[in-house]
């Protein structure tokens, strides 16, 4: 009857605990003066949270490879958009 296996509840809860922990770390780190490291930490943690959500909540881990490629394509074009814009910015200013 059940043709579609699902991860156990504890996997989802563990991911949620990790997400909340990362939120607290990013919030706490913002109050520690680290200079240029502050935005770097914030971005790294946001990326980690996004990966947790896509991998587990959005089932990219268990989904068809085509879905991972499509998701990666979205972020790849975003990287081109921002990356190339930044090279222009770096050269001109």
């Amino acid at each position, binding site marked *: *009857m*059940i*043709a*579609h296996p*699902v*991860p156990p*509840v504890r996997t*989802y*809860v563990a*991911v*949620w605990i990790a*997400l*909340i922990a990362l*939120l607290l770390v*990013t*919030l706490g780190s*913002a*109050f*520690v*003066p*680290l200079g240029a490291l*502050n*935005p770097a930490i*914030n*971005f790294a*943690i*946001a990326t980690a*949270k*996004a990966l947790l*959500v*896509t991998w*587990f*909540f*959005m089932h990219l881990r268990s*989904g*068809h490879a*085509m*879905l991972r490629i*499509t*998701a990666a*394509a*979205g*972020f790849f*074009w*975003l990287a081109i*958009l*921002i990356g190339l*814009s*930044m090279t222009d*910015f770096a050269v001109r*200013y």
Partner: protein
Amino acid sequence: MTSSVIVARQFDDSDQQRQAADLGIWVFLASEILFFGVLFLAYTVTRLHHPEAFATASRQTDVALGSINTGVLLTSSLTMALAVRATKLGVRRAAIVFLCATAMLGLVFVAIKGTEYRHDYVAGLVPGLRFSFAGPHAGGVELFFGLYFLMTGVHVLHMLVGLGVVGTLAMRAARKAFTPEYFTPVELGGLYWHLVDIVWIFLYPLLYLVSRT
């Protein structure tokens, strides 16, 4: 395998139909990444031009409410994931409870965001409407809040769409529309909800945590 799923004639079977739907929503989500991407790019370029102003402006935002809202949205993603899980297992009652919990958390998020907007208005931080921030970086602060309202506004718009989707799913689940073989609308609605969560995950540090030291 006997199946309760109605397969459209262009598909060989229900598996292929479901895979097509999954691929379709992911293509849409990839386009959403780029839709929000230009706003993140505009933010990045403006911040590089006005670093001090962005630090000053970010300190005007309510970091407590912003952080609570992040927690609320992350939790709503958990309940949404559990709703999809319950639907796939055919546990209808749990699916309805989790869908309603997701909608409630979404409403809490929108309500907190509305409270923040009201505070911003009272503090005179709304460009074009009521902006009275004075200081050496007032121009850059105004640019920050222009982007703040544009980005959070478009995000809240997505939240309202998501609330409509989740509410509809809850009603359809109550009418026994979903089975362990047919759960595509719940799965796709969930994916959309999670993407809106991801957008906020990136908005949160960019708007609230620029400079708190």
